[in-house]
């Protein structure tokens, strides 16, 4: 295209922008990297206020003395991590990133995913966070900088980029499970499966835990919404009243198993059960249970 024509196109675009016809927000990759690096450290140093609040409530309701002592220790541990800016857990997690990308956003300065990966690399290195990722699941050589992250992207209307970083520990991830159930299994089947996963996990995933339950979709969708459910604030109510009731019932049932904090006996095995649903195929009832240890870490930023 000749230069004059290019200038004309730009001129027209400028006029449209000025009139508010097209709004495009530009976000620099360097800003994304900085924010990811900061959040990786903050997520590992500062336990969320909702988790602290849940610890205190669990302390009040716990009937086992050992359980009470453990909850006190966990509160103290979070305070030390915050005051000394050290990771609350040595397992600083797999960096799981949720991106909500507005369709009117333009990323400037390079590859968006590379910018995020660089943020993880810098955050885990500068923050003295443990590097827990191996480059191949069978070769098992540590990548040395906790990359790559796992990135889930959703495109939405708007001009913003929301980044959520949720470091996920291996111990609780290992106790998570998925089952492709029959539609006839229904809600009773779902309840039984959640209880079965909790029973099998017992002391292993560092209770008190949070259970993220994904019901519906396809196999991978169920697993993904189970993980998304873990991001919900503890103590918040499910928008669906039927699911809110099911969450309360499941919480009571898993706590009645008697595992308690650290599985050493008590009534606070889980701090919360969070359910997320998605439409399912007429033939399917997928159910995924993603367990989060008590170090329920996540930070978000909207650019």
């Amino acid at each position, binding site marked *: 295209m000749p230069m004059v024509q290019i200038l004309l196109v730009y001129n027209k675009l400028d006029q449209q922008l000025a009139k508010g016809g097209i709004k495009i927000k530009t976000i620099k990759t360097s800003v994304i990297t900085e924010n990811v690096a900061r959040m990786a450290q903050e997520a590992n140093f500062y336990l969320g206020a909702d988790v602290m609040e849940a610890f205190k409530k669990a302390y009040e309701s716990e009937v086992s003395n050992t359980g009470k002592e453990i909850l006190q220790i966990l509160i103290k541990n979070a305070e030390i991590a915050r005051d000394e800016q050290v990771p609350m857990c040595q397992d600083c997690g797999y960096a799981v990133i949720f991106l909500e990308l507005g369709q009117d956003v333009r990323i400037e300065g390079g590859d968006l995913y590379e910018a995020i990966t660089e943020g993880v690399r810098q955050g885990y290195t500068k923050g003295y966070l443990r590097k827990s990722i191996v480059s191949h699941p069978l070769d098992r050589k540590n990548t040395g900088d906790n990359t790559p992250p796992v990135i889930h992207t959703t495109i939405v209307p708007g001009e913003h980029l929301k980044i959520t970083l949720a470091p996920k520990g291996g111990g609780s991830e290992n106790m998570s499970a998925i089952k492709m159930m029959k539609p006839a299994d229904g809600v009773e089947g779902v309840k039984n499966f959640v209880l079965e996963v909790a029973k099998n996990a017992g002391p292993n995933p560092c209770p008190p835990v949070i259970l993220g339950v994904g019901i519906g979709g396809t196999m991978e969708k169920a697993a993904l919404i189970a993980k998304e459910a873990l991001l919900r604030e503890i103590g918040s109510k499910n928008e669906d009243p039927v699911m809110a009731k099911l969450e309360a019932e499941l919480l009571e049932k898993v706590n009645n198993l008697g595992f308690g904090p650290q599985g050493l*006996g008590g009534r606070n095995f889980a701090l919360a059960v969070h359910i997320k649903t998605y439409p399912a195929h007429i033939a399917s009832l997928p159910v995924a249970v993603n367990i989060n240890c008590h170090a329920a870490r996540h930070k978000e930023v909207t650019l």
Partner: protein
Amino acid sequence: MTQIRLTTPLSDEDVSKLRIGQQVLINGLIYTGRDAAHKRMVDLIQAGKINELPFDPKGQIIYYVGPSPTKPGKVVGSCGPTTSYRMDPYAPELYKLGLKASIGKGKRSPEVIEAMKKYKGVYFAAIGGAAALIAKSIKSAKVIAYPDLGAEAVHEFVVEDFPVVVVNDTLGGDLYQEGIKIYAVK
């Protein structure tokens, strides 16, 4: 609850009197090891190269942990226990060589519980996720083997009143089984 103080190395008598649910404060030297270090150690044992082990397991305690990197000015990074079942395939070999205790979190296999009965060993739980707090009881730390494994290298820790709970004793008792019975609602 009364707390029992133990100093390493441990004798058969030291561990034989321990019972599930007791709180123990450990003092002295302890060694660390996770999946990768265990695999190397057991490969050595099976190849008959016991003298090449990073430390003599006799009377010692192994702590299942991969610490976070040490921040300048600190003794060690955060270092809470990792889940123990992953070391189950290797643990009996070490108890057989005289290891007196392991520290981790979570259930052990029937084979490990049997090995502890047979060779007089115990299993302690430390509080999973209390990693910043646990680091306070570690007074010195150094890597003694497998530095190429990073966080998974074998460290030697000098600990002072390192808090643990007896989960499996030399009688085959299991706190994870017993502890929940009182609190389970039928």
